[in-house]
């Protein structure tokens, strides 16, 4: 097995935008594939996530849904969202496994101002280093999937790390391991894309003509992909139809940052040249 924990990108360094790919031969990228049609809503994956990552259990209360928690939090990195949708008079659970998608182009990493607080490894996993996090929450703003969660006590941000310690040891993430229906698969990204095609073919045959794979191009593809039975109803799964890692204001911001450097130099040089040309106004000389 090759070193899949080599750094590919690091926040607030040149590698954030120029990944360190040229150094290495083709290290495999890994991906999770979540087949929503096979999910029975048991939440075993949520429990496995809490257990493996040793995350404190939050007391929960019934809020009129089968969903365990209302939202993700700094110590709930995985939440099965039980979206209740009516289709042709029937109630459907359009369950979404809500956790970090580990984008190929991570908006969180691009937005982060703290060097090394967010890294992407060659295997595709995007991980937060809380020891380098400054708590600005720009990653929360930069994430098109609303995943990172800020912890007020430690003033740092947390999210799913794809069980990086397990992956490094050649194991699958805990949620994959525990899933009783094999709704979650784990392997190289190429294998998972091929598997997704097979699954979609099967779904098509069973009448789900709109079945599709969710691997959005706006973020360069993801390392957690979904097989979506009702591919024409992404909204109902609370999956953004067109997520992007570089929204227009952020593109504008990077342009302004470059312009500011130019204008700053222009102002300094300009005032210096003005001084050399016109000098000081000494009041005595004007009487």
């Amino acid at each position, binding site marked *: 097995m090759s070193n899949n924990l080599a750094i590919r990108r690091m926040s*607030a*360094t040149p590698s954030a935008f120029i990944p360190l790919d040229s150094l290495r031969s083709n290290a495999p990228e890994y991906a999770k594939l979540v087949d929503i049609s096979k999910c029975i809503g048991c939440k075993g994956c949520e429990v496995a996530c809490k257990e493996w990552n040793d995350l404190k259990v939050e007391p929960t209360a019934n809020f009129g849904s089968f969903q365990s928690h209302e939202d993700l939090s700094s110590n709930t990195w995985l939440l099965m969202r039980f979206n209740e949708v009516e289709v042709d008079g029937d109630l459907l659970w359009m369950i979404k496994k809500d956790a970090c998608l580990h984008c190929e182009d991570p908006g969180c990493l691009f937005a982060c*101002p*703290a*060097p090394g607080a967010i890294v992407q490894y060659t295997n595709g996993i995007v991980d937060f280093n809380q020891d*380098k*996090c*400054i*708590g*600005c*929450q*720009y990653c*929360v*703003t*930069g*994430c*098109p999937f*609303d995943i990172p969660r*800020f912890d007020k006590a430690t*003033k740092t941000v947390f999210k799913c790390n794809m069980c990086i310690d397990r992956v490094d040891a050649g194991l699958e993430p805990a949620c994959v391991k525990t899933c009783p229906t094999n709704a979650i698969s784990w392997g190289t990204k190429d294998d998972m894309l091929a598997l997704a095609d097979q699954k979609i073919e099967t779904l098509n045959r069973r009448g789900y003509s709109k079945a599709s794979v969710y691997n959005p191009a706006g973020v360069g593809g993801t390392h957690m992909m979904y097989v979506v039975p009702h591919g024409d109803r992404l909204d109902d799964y609370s999956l953004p139809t067109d997520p992007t890692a570089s*929204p227009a*204001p*952020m593109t*504008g*911001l990077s342009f*302004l*940052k470059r*312009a*500011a450097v130019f*204008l*700053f130099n222009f*102002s*300094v040089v300009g*005032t210096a040249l*003005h*001084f050399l040309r*016109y*000098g*000081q*106004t*000494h*009041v*005595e000389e*004007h*009487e």
Partner: protein
Amino acid sequence: MSSESLLGRFTYVERVVHCVVGGSFVALLVTGLAFSYPSLFWLTALAGGGPAARVLHPWIGTVFGVSMVCMLSLWIRDMFLDRDDWRWLGAVKDYATQNHDKVPPAGKYNAGQKVFFWVQGVLAVVFVATGLLLWMPERFESGLLSVARLLHFASTMGGGLLLIVHVYLGTIAYPGTARGMIDGKVTRRWAALHHPRWHQDQSL
């Protein structure tokens, strides 16, 4: 030079407020630049490290916002442009190139200072309002926050660039000006050259 040749230009309160506005803005610039440019991230060390800089920055911003409101309300009365000011703006090139004989006489503040006041005032509002959003991002939509980041940077950039010109004119280009903000006094000769109409009023 005898003491009779001095005029009081800024009161103690005005000088303190100006000092707080300027000092807090520079502190904001130092920490803000660290968040904007990875190559300047080391500047956070001046605030006690990245997390400390992130905590301090909005509080310094609060000091800036409050002192800016004080400064705006202290000076706003004198900052409306009159007809002479528009003529002054027409001759701004002569002012910048030392042709002081061709510049229409200015009052307590010349038109350039007045425009500077209004532009910095508007930028400060944008600066503080967007800063408030970024202070507590968990309460707002990420689309709004991205726009806030853009505007926060743009307004700082405008204010920072104007600051360079402001400091250059007040210290290097026109000696005797900065003193008005330090001990509050300027010489009569300085006033007669730079603010003739104000000088006349003071001499009545």
